[in-house]
């Protein structure tokens, strides 16, 4: 057992930390989030230059050869800065599918663009009726000649507006919720038959509703085995959960520390409100929630780095449960202890709260992952 970081990991962490501190203050973040695109192309270029977009990919594919711990370190810092750039959808989801299940040709075709920052990606999986069940699909891909024809509707596709490359889950056989018969396709976002409705999310990301009408795909659009998409989704999404969970941990750290600072300086009834024992203990609870979430973050990352399987999946679900609970507690109480100020759009606190609340929903909330944890 070893809890220390390698030199490469420490360097990566320091580099992201510096960027957040110097170039991603709250005001800058708010400006970036208010851009039409919802993120800064310039920042994205910087990410590429600093090598962050290649972190999870094999060196043979032009990447950094990093593992889950590396992703975790990066995402934790992103969470401190409330980074809106679409790292998760592009690098960990679209890129993740290529890494886990892509053929040599597919990797060759797309990974360079992802790593150099020229290609944006997104994973279109959710459907209005499906809640958190990846297998609940009414979108279908029917064999048509040499390829497939996609029809269906995908909900809340994060980074849909910017994505060049979509990974789309669709049913190729079986009933609506069968675990078999789920297939994955790499789809050019500008393909004929795709139409989008774009909108922002509560936490200032950009998402789309996507309608698929007779979208024609060639045979090489299939990623992984036909009908065998579900285990791939589990593996790729668990990697993404580690990242958004680590973001949450970073956000919680900012929230509990900012709240402590605020309570030390803010005076009421003739003394800093931090003198009130009830508020002190609440902050202790926030601190403990943060520490517990951080502990499971390490656990999930290390289990994922041991190789994907039930142990790793279980650790990821445990982490997601903890993140959901801790995030809610820390977020709500940071707002509460900041009083009216915590409710304003102009202070950072409420924005962290919103992000934490949305992270709980993303890829399945507390209840969903408790059940998954119990079933593994």
């Amino acid at each position, binding site marked *: 057992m070893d809890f220390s970081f390698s030199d490469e990991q420490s360097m990566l962490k320091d580099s992201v930390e510096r960027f957040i501190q110097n170039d991603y203050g709250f005001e800058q973040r708010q400006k970036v989030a*208010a851009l*039409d695109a919802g993120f800064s192309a310039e920042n994205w270029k910087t990410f590429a230059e600093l090598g962050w977009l290649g972190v999870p990919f094999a060196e043979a594919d032009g990447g950094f050869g990093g593992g889950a711990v590396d992703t975790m370190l990066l995402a934790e810092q992103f969470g401190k800065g409330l980074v809106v750039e679409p790292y998760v959808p592009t690098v960990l989801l679209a890129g993740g599918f290529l890494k886990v299940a892509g053929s040599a040709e597919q990797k060759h075709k797309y990974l360079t663009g992802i790593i150099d920052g020229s290609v944006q990606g997104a994973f279109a999986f*959710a459907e*209005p*009726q*499906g*809640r*958190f*069940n990846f297998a*609940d699909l009414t979108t279908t891909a029917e064999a048509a000649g040499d390829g497939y024809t996609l029809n269906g509707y995908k*909900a*809340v596709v*994060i980074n849909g507006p910017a994505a060049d490359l979509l990974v789309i889950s669709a049913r190729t056989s079986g009933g609506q*919720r069968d675990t078999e018969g789920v297939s994955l396709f790499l789809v050019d976002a500008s393909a004929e038959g795709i139409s989008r*409705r*774009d*909108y*922002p*999310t*509560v*936490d*200032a*990301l950009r*998402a789309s*509703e996507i309608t698929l009408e007779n979208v024609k795909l060639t045979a090489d659009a299939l990623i992984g085995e036909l009908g065998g998409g579900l285990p791939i989704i589990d593996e790729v999404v668990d990697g993404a959960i580690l990242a958004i969970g680590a973001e949450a941990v970073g956000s919680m750290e900012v929230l509990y520390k900012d709240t402590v600072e605020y309570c030390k300086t803010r*005076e*009421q*009834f*003739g003394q800093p409100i931090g003198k*009130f024992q*009830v*508020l002190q203990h609440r902050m202790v609870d926030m601190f403990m929630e943060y520490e517990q979430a951080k502990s499971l973050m390490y656990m999930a990352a290390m289990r994922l780095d041991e190789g994907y399987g039930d142990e790793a999946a279980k650790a990821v679900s445990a982490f997601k449960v903890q993140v959901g609970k801790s995030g*809610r507690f820390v977020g*709500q109480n940071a*707002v*509460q202890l900041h*009083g*009216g100020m*915590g*409710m*304003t*759009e*102009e202070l950072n606190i*409420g924005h962290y*709260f*919103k992000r934490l*609340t*949305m992270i709980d*929903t*993303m890829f399945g*909330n507390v*209840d969903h992952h*408790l*059940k998954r944890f119990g079933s593994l």
Partner: protein
Amino acid sequence: MNLGLDDAERAFQIDVREFIDAHWPEGAREVGGAMAHPPGRRSVAEQHWYDALCARGWSVPNWPVAHGGTGWTPTQHYIWDRETTRAECPVMSAFGARMLAPVIYAWGSTAQQAKFLPPIREARVQWCQGYSEPGAGSDLASLRTRAVRDGDHYVVNGAKTWTTEAHVADWMFCLVRTNTTTERRQQGISFLLIDMASPGIEVHPILLLGDQHSVNSVTLTDVRVPVANLIGEENHGWTYAKGLLTHERTGIAGIATSQVRLGKLKQMAACEQDGALAEDAVFQRKLQEVEIELMALEMTELRTLATVQEGGAPGPESSILKIKGTELRQRIADLQIEALGYYGLPYPDDLLLGNEGPVGPDGALDSLRRMLYGRAASILGGSNEIQKNIIAKAVLGF
């Protein structure tokens, strides 16, 4: 001891229902209540409702009969609140009718009562509350807005914040400091009524999470207020304000509103396309827990009302209603987001990208706004931590 309605009460209930059907038809109903977005300018339907209320003499049921109240029993009030909330009738802004009016009929002069009460009763004038100040929060007594006597006017200088509805209000009732040399901070405060059209008043919006503009900051620069607009005695304003705060706490429980929202949530969970939530024992349990706590709180409120009938104003016990009422509202809002799944993410708000209309199921965006803005419920009007201090002191004797 019994919970049933007697014949007279049942007749009253029918009366109320008929009145609602006649003047607030089904269309365009939207849950009101204390935490909904406060009204800006009114719709035609709303104005019709208020006019009908005034014509029937039901616009201010809680007031003393002498001033236009209804003299209802607690049971009648309970019936009225339930029926109007279930039908999602518009709710008159609390600032004039429920918060200021009790001060005026208790401590205002006859002239003030004649001047200010009728427009409130007739829903013709909107009020806002000038209590909180920048940097003061729940600690009202630390206020610094100054009023200096100049002939038959006060000249007021200072700033108020978290002022709900200031941007649509005609008048503001306001706490100001008239004496800066007192021993206790609660002394030297006066209670002034200020015309929002007075020169020197500026209103700036404060955007809150999930809100579309209801809260403001207000600056007052050399605002001249006639001495005739002073309530009661100079320097005694704290006493009047304190009585008023108790009234604010009962209003804020919002039990009937929570019941309506819980009902809608249960319906939504039951109608869900694939039935996942309807069959989810864990989610159902959460709904049942909230429902039971609401039942308990409703009974607690009824018990409080029964006490009021015997003894007058609600005691510090009413803080329970504030604490539990806001907690439950927040929990229901959280459960609504849970029920929405991924459709709890979209926020096509005009504050961000421009509004193209809703995404996902009906009411999803409203649920989100309510969840976000609902966090204020445990902060504003005396945070829940302050409410617990009040109970510790007044009920437990610490």
